[in-house]
């Protein structure tokens, strides 16, 4: 009998980026990089664990937009083209680096990696990685949870309850389509909690959600066991909060593992380093240099000087760090169990894309940790939030504190000078959607299509990613354009539906561009 539990929760999410109107679109590469560097390595890891009979538990959010992109035929085709181009590049790199032994070995390393990615994607899972996640879930090893439909920042929608409800219920419906069952847990977008969301989750039969540490620590009344036991909200859904200690070891720029000097450096990429004419076929068609995924250097140190990456040494380091992580969890569990007189749970949530994309060795770290936890210790068992609640259904009732996992812990990241302009538009659009859902009975197929599309445009505009990008100043023009385009399309559809003069060509055009949630139920806004 273990003294406690550790639950790893990975949050896999990307905004819905799909541009059929262009043959190549830079931001679509977020998905392709995610597939190659994170989702496929995680899937390969889980297949290996199954093959070797390791009884593991892991929870992962596959957000609805990510789910939609992973099952989209256009993006699947484009990914195959993308990875095939990279394989071609590695073939050239194997030749180019023939007189540089370190780089030559790395060129082969990437060649194998990209081949594996293509094989996993194309042959093993027939281009549909959701089927992989579903397989692991059906095997009882992985718990897939959902997020809000388009990762909308829910606290700032609360004045229009139907907008919140639609984000949750559309996500639930979509999850059911993808995984053949209803979701039992949800990752609230940005871990942003507001009082009242639990009621909506309860209606959707979602049994738990995850928030940041202070969301439970500052709960009313004080949680007796801090974040080391879930709590129930008054409406019924349980809340799990992040453990700081385990987060810090992985996340922290001050103390985290991923910055070890032996690990692969993220920024040095062949897309920027190599001769322009040579690399040009593998960067953006307009000639803009970008990341290719071929990165030849290790972190090395704090200066700009970089030494060649050494995968074998990095792998050993990942094993050492996994052992260290396990050791610390053992001590943590033993210490807590002695004080709590019940098995504590340590919930360690991370952005999934940290593993593999940013921290190249992250999937190896996870693999080592899961195997070591299975074979090398007895203090704790790996679990999932649902499994823990099945075993421990008696918990304290509290009202959590409004919070998010953004900078400073509340809403500032998504509500400040750079992005506050979006909310008047989002609120008016949401109110208009409620009006449409309530006041327009079925009047033929074209109206139904227009109503569904209006819902899609509103949901896409509500994605928290746009406000986040505006705040952090990365691809701001794109985020602004996406926000405006979706709202403008929504208003055009609204006016046409209200005026009874729906332009079918326009509806078709929007359906062609914004394909998310083909079976969307607009009655969720009623």
């Amino acid at each position: 009998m273990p003294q406690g539990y550790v639950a790893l929760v990975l949050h896999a999410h990307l905004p819905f980026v799909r541009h059929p109107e262009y043959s190549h679109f830079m931001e679509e590469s977020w998905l392709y990089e995610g597939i190659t560097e994170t989702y496929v390595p995680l899937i390969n890891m889980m297949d290996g664990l199954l093959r070797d009979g390791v009884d593991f538990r892991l929870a992962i959010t596959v957000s609805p937009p990510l789910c939609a992109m992973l099952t989209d035929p256009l993006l699947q085709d484009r990914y195959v083209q993308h990875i095939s181009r990279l394989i071609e590049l590695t073939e050239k790199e194997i030749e180019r680096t023939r007189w540089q032994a370190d780089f030559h070995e790395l060129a082969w390393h990437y060649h194998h990696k990209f081949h594996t990615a293509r094989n996993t994607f194309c042959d093993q899972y027939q281009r549909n990685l959701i089927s992989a996640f579903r397989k692991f879930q059906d095997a009882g090893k992985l718990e897939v949870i959902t997020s809000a439909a388009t990762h909308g920042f829910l606290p700032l929608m609360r004045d229009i309850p139907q907008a919140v409800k639609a984000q949750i219920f559309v996500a639930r419906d979509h999850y059911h389509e993808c995984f053949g069952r209803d979701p039992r847990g949800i990752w609230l977008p940005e871990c942003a909690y507001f009082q009242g969301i639990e009621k909506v989750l309860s209606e959707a039969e979602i049994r738990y959600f995850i928030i940041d540490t202070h969301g439970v620590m500052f709960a009313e009344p004080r949680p007796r066991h801090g974040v080391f036991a879930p709590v129930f909200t008054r409406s019924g859904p349980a809340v799990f909060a992040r453990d700081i200690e385990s987060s810090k070891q992985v996340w922290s720029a001050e103390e985290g593992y991923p910055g070890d000097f032996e690990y692969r450096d993220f920024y040095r990429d062949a897309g920027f380093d190599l001769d322009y004419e040579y690399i040009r076929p593998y960067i953006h068609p307009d000639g803009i240099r970008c990341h290719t995924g071929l990165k030849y250097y290790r972190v090395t140190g704090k200066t700009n000087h970089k030494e060649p990456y050494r995968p074998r040494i990095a792998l050993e380091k990942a094993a050492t760090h996994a052992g260290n992580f396990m050791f610390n969890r053992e001590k943590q569990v033993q210490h807590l169990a002695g004080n709590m007189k019940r098995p504590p749970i340590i919930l360690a949530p991370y952005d999934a894309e940290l593993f593999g994309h940013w921290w190249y060795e992250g999937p190896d770290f996870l693999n080592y940790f899961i195997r070591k936890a299975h074979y090398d210790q007895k203090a704790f068992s790996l679990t999932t939030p649902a499994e823990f609640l099945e075993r421990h259904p008696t918990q304290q009732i509290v009202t959590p504190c409004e919070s998010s996992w953004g900078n400073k812990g509340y809403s500032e990241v998504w509500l400040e000078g750079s992005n506050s302009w979006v909310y008047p538009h989002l609120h008016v659009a949401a109110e208009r959607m409620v009006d449409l859902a309530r006041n327009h009975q079925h009047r033929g197929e074209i109206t139904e299509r227009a109503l569904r599309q209006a819902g899609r445009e509103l949901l896409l505009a509500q994605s928290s990613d746009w406000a986040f990008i505006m705040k952090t100043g990365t691809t701001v023009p794109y985020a602004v354009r996406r926000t405006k385009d979706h709202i403008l399309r929504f208003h055009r559809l609204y006016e046409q539906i209200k005026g009874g003069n729906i332009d079918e060509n326009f509806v078709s055009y929007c359906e062609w561009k914004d394909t998310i949630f083909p079976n969307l139920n607009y009655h969720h806004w009623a």
Partner: protein
Amino acid sequence: MKKTELQAKSLKILTALAIKLGVKRPSTNRKEDLIAEILTAIKVSKLKAGGVKTASAGKPPASSSSKSKASANKHNGAQKVSFAARKRQATARPGEVALAPVPAPLFEHKFVTPVHPMPANTASPYDHLGELPESYGTGRLFFAARDPYWIYAYWDYTWNQMEEMRRVARYGELKLRVHAGRDSQAPVQQEITLNPAARNWFVQVDHANADYCAEFGYYDHQGNFITASRSYPTHTPSDRMSSRTDARFVTIPFHISFRELFEMVKAYFKDGEELADVLHRLQAAGFPFPFDYERTHADEQALGDMFGKDLFRSIRMGSDVVTEMFQRRLREETSSGLLAPPSPMGASFGAPIPRGFWFNVNAELIVYGATEPKARVVFDGKEIALKPNGTFRFQFALPDGSYDMPIAATSPDEVETRRVFLHFVRNTSEQDGVGVVQHSEGLIPPSSSKGESTKSE
């Protein structure tokens, strides 16, 4: 790097290495002296990098690596970490609720794409739907707490509507009135005279964990406050642990749906109660549910004892400590924002992009040629695929050294063979910190690069 390794290198390479390590003018041509200078430079650079590792069991050897990431984050405009925050290192033993200082985030974005112009819209007229309106004139007053001490307000009025109000307002002033309570009967906490062009406002308030609401309006010429719109109430979140330490426990079996549970107890709801409240009250009274629950007649204290004592008391950590930790997070404008950063796109484990003057030079080798499309070409012992027009092109990294490259083409009928033997030597010397091998984005290749590369022969 060890002394024996250095001794194996040539004087030329050692000189280059010394320059690379920042020995600006190697003071000697004697190999042993040069090696001594290099070893000193390596030692200094390790000390500067904090590279002396003192990892012990149970602790990650991370201290040396952290600085590179912190500096990288700073470079990216991600949150900065104050020196003071860095000094407050974790002192908690494994298992203690983290008293550790707030870690800086590892990265701020999930993915990075370079800055690039938005592609032009396609030809479809549906791509040009105009601009968003400045306002809609709905009269909504939105008022929402952003954090414990700031509330965001916007009012949705058209320019004409605002002008109309200003016309009848005393001094032409529009006001935002903030009440410390859930409705406009509550005391006025502050009244803000709005800038005529303002459409939103961030309002600072005094209390966390408190109710506020707002009115948008103006004073008429008789001095009466005219309310144009009222907000919903908002509640500023807490910034500390609750002083309430009472505890209610409830069993909510996971395998029974909320709907079924609701059906079981719907006749017993009292005003204001929610599902967990009713289940708790009935379980405390011993209600016969069709599932096991943890207690029957014991009181809350007994149940609490069954689950252990208050964790914070038992590990001797008061609420003040926890609260201080989180409040520091909120206060520290220059700090990272404690825990993880969320959502999509960018940051760094690597080093910042260098500042100031720089110079990178590299030489690669391009070998290209053509023959009959169906000919067989063997390149350094390996048959290569020709393009459909019979051409081929290879590019090679060319580090210092001497290289031979035999190439042979055999006619499709296997009768004739032509052979080329290429020989290359690269011998580089650098001075004053010239970058060594990698291209950077700013290094534009000369238009005649192919021709120049082949001149290496």
